[in-house]
């Protein structure tokens, strides 16, 4: 029943620790303009703008979309602001697509960003709350015990995480937009980097980045006229579950399993490892690759780390199912945009427009984002063909 929709333009800024020479408005406008240029369109061709970013406290601005409307050519148009924790970049893409898939709009612009250098994300994540347990642990401290439980259950060797850290940085070295550029990184270097949250080392963690990512999404008729190859949205799904509840499976959360099943069913995928050509998956800490390989059905339960160590997810090892060819979140993490970057990079792959990190002949790709206490999920599957 949904109208067909496709990504017809993608724009990203360079990801880096600090964008010193642009305002927040300048940063998002840069990504938006690049997306318009990629689609060979102008502001007048856009019917609505959908903005996403992580918590307002990361920059210290309430509802920043109100201020960004001028920079995003949105005056007189609809503007919506999505916020679903770390998954927000993915959720925003899905909500933006629904503007077109509902038949109510023909072509929209969606933009996500984070300018982490304007404030301090660790502070913003660690405010004490009345009536609530104060964790004060940041994201790494929250996820480390869950990772340890994964290692205990699967008896995975400790170098599986190190391998992911190296693999994604080597991928990132192929992507000029990636924040961390570490073309000579070694397993030894990762192993010797400081331990932050056992078992996560410094080099097994994502950086803190400034950056923005934008996409233009159009309906079937307009996408067919677009100058570059469209990435057709073949399925999109979201799921949420509470942070804590009795009996919660934290290593492989049910919401992630359900979300993947939903998006695969829409896209006609029965065997994700075989049917998909590549995946951009939200891996902010190294061990989340093997954990998500299992959660998303690419590996049997307890076997995710084996795929990682075999090189199945590595472009350099010529693996059969490359994950995070762009370098992933381990190379660039402007939090509010990180999910959309996964979705956009999946689209770049099926458009055959991923430059030096292109997977040859990629036709079907998964974009994945998660957030909160691994409780919010957003996923889409994009294809080079409509069906």
């Amino acid at each position, binding site marked *: 029943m*949904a109208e067909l929709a496709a990504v017809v333009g993608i724009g990203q800024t360079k990801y880096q620790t600090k964008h010193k020479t642009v305002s927040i408005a300048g940063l998002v406008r840069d990504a938006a303009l690049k997306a318009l240029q990629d689609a060979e369109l102008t502001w007048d061709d856009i019917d609505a703008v959908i903005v996403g970013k992580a918590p307002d406290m990361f920059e210290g601005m309430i509802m920043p979309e109100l*201020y960004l409307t001028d920079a995003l050519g949105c005056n007189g148009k*609809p503007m*919506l602001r999505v916020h679903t924790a770390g998954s927000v970049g993915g959720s925003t893409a899905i909500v933006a697509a629904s503007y077109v898939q509902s038949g109510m709009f023909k072509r929209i612009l969606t933009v996500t960003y984070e300018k982490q250098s304007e404030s301090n994300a660790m502070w913003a994540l660690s*405010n004490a709350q009345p009536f609530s347990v104060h964790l004060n642990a940041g994201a790494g401290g929250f996820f480390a015990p869950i990772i340890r439980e994964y290692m205990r259950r699967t008896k995975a060797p400790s170098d599986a995480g190190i391998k992911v850290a190296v693999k994604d940085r080597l991928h990132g070295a192929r992507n000029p937009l990636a924040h961390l550029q570490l073309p000579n990184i070694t397993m030894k270097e990762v192993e010797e980097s400081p331990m932050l949250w056992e078992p996560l080392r410094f080099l097994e963690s994502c950086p803190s980045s400034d950056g923005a990512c934008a996409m233009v999404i159009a309906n079937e008729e307009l996408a067919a006229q677009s100058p570059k190859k469209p990435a057709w949205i073949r399925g999109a799904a979201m*799921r949420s*579950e509470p942070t804590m509840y009795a009996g919660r499976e934290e290593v492989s959360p049910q919401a992630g399993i*359900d979300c993947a099943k939903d998006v695969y069913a829409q896209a006609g995928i029965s065997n994700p490892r075989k049917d998909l050509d590549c995946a951009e998956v939200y891996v902010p800490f190294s061990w989340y690759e093997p954990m998500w390989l299992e959660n998303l059905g690419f590996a049997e339960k307890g076997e995710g780390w084996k795929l990682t160590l075999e090189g199945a997810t590595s472009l350099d090892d010529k693996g059969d199912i490359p994950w995070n060819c762009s370098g992933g979140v381990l190379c660039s993490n402007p939090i509010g945009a990180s999910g959309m970057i996964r979705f956009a990079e999946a689209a770049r792959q099926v458009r055959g427009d991923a430059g030096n990190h292109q997977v040859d002949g990629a036709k079907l790709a998964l974009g994945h984002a998660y957030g909160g206490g691994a409780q919010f999920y957003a996923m889409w599957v994009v294809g080079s063909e409509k069906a």
Partner: protein
Amino acid sequence: MRDIAIVSFVQSDCVRDAGALNEVELIMPVIRKVLDNVGIQSAQDVDFTCSGSCDYLQGAAFAFVLGVDALGAVPPIKESHVEMDAAWALYEAVLKIRMGQADSALLYGFGKSSPGELPIVLSQQLDPYYLSPLWLDTVSSAALQARALLDSGKATEADMAEVVARSRKNAKSNPHAQLKGDVSVDELLAEPTYLSPLRKHDCCPISDGASAMIIATVEKAKEWGKPYAVLKGIDHRIESHHFGARDLTRSVSTEIAAKAAGVADGPVEVAEIYAPFSHQEIILKKALGLGDDTVINPSGGVLAGNQMMASGLSRVGEVANRIIKGEIKRGVAHATSGHALQQNLVAVLEGA
């Protein structure tokens, strides 16, 4: 395009300070009631859930995450959130239903504004480089707008007082209202100014609370066997952030949204307008193209109680409930966001 039915709406009482109740405790009673009204058990019985809230009211990143606890999202649900008034959560759910990914949706908005100084908190909605360092609060920007309106000759201070007197009077029949009573225009005009030209009563009160709504396809509403109102049109627009670039005596974004939503396609018996300041009702009435035969804010509107992040959804819910009760056949609801009416949403509701 699929018609959408508003099946149930519930809001909590507007109170100045909910005390020790946290956000989850504000949300849970309205969620329970709105589900009971439809005769369903839980969030798992609808296809999609979407909420509106603001981290800065709670003073914590990811404030909305607690909402998922209030829903009891086990097993997992299809859920989303806007950092906006829940009227825009309604809009997101309308898109989901129209694209065929859902046949029903639960929406809620909540805000506990009492712990902070709301007008000052909202000063941080402004341009971070040029405006927010001035700590221009929401009452001050509204006062600038009111002054522009008075200077243009489009309204008088007596017109503003009339809006307030009517709100207080109408609120007498609204059990959730915070401010109500009989007060004359002359009495109001005798009050001192607060931030000139605004008097205290020209400004909405600060309220804690939540509201919730259930919508569905008309087919699903019939299956539930519940009366419903039909959402005939809905549209939202934004305009420039820069006061100096706008004619503050008009609401251009409301005018565009009203046209797109089809306000003028039939008679408007009732309009619930989100006007946090009395003069804004005058601006919005004109922007919506409403005549004197339309009853405006029979609930008292937000001058009688303003639950941040829920009030916009509640305007839609107020009109829906009147249609469901058979009091009216067609009405309009409006929601706003930002300083001096920067962003606006308009919905048109009709009887089944």
